[in-house]
């Protein structure tokens, strides 16, 4: 349990606290001229890149799991339940 708290502490320091600070640092001062098309479409394309990358990793992992742990795989080993034949 200690190491899990450690992991989340590291994550919080690395990612969450800077992001929250960044957001709350935004004041009410007037903004500059900008092209909202660029900001919005740029965000869209970056989000799509993340979405497709995550999608590829997740579906790739599932495909690999199905391939590796099929019954006919040369290195397949029965689970303890299958070995004993008792459920």
């Amino acid at each position: 349990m200690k190491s899990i708290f450690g992991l989340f502490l590291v994550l919080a320091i690395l990612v969450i606290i800077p992001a929250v600070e960044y957001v709350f640092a935004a004041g009410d001062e007037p903004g500059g001229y900008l092209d909202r098309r660029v900001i919005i479409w740029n965000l869209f394309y970056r989000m799509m890149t993340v979405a497709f990358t995550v999608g590829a990793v997740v579906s790739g992992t599932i495909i690999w799991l199905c391939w590796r742990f099929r019954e006919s795989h040369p290195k397949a080993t029965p689970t303890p339940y299958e070995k004993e034949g008792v459920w």
Partner: protein
Amino acid sequence: MGHHSNWPEWIYVGVVIALMVWVGAEAWNAERLVEHIPADAEVIKVTGQQWFWTFEHEDGTKEIGELHVKSGKAYKFEITSKDVNHAFNIHDYVVLMDAVPGRVNTVWFAPMEVGEHDIQCREYCGLIHYNMRGKLIIEEDSS
């Protein structure tokens, strides 16, 4: 099963949380940039009603169905409705804001090129919703 390692699961959970925080922060930052209105933005009052748009400039000039603006200037739209919910949309400039009776919503943009663009209602508002259109005309700034 007791001595099975949980680390891969926790790393997976950590990666998912980190990704979600990053996505949230990026989106929040884009929203912050887009919502901060420049101090010198000219206010245009936009009123939606079945089934046309009315525009009122700061100097009192009114337009119906057409909106004339200058390139290189910032404009802040104060959007409301007289009857039912509408949504003010300039698709080419990614401007989209609800027009709600009794409420003023704001959105701003700064057109940079001369040209003509469509304005369209994006909230179903009745029989002629499909034709609740307008024209945005961006002109050269002569001043």
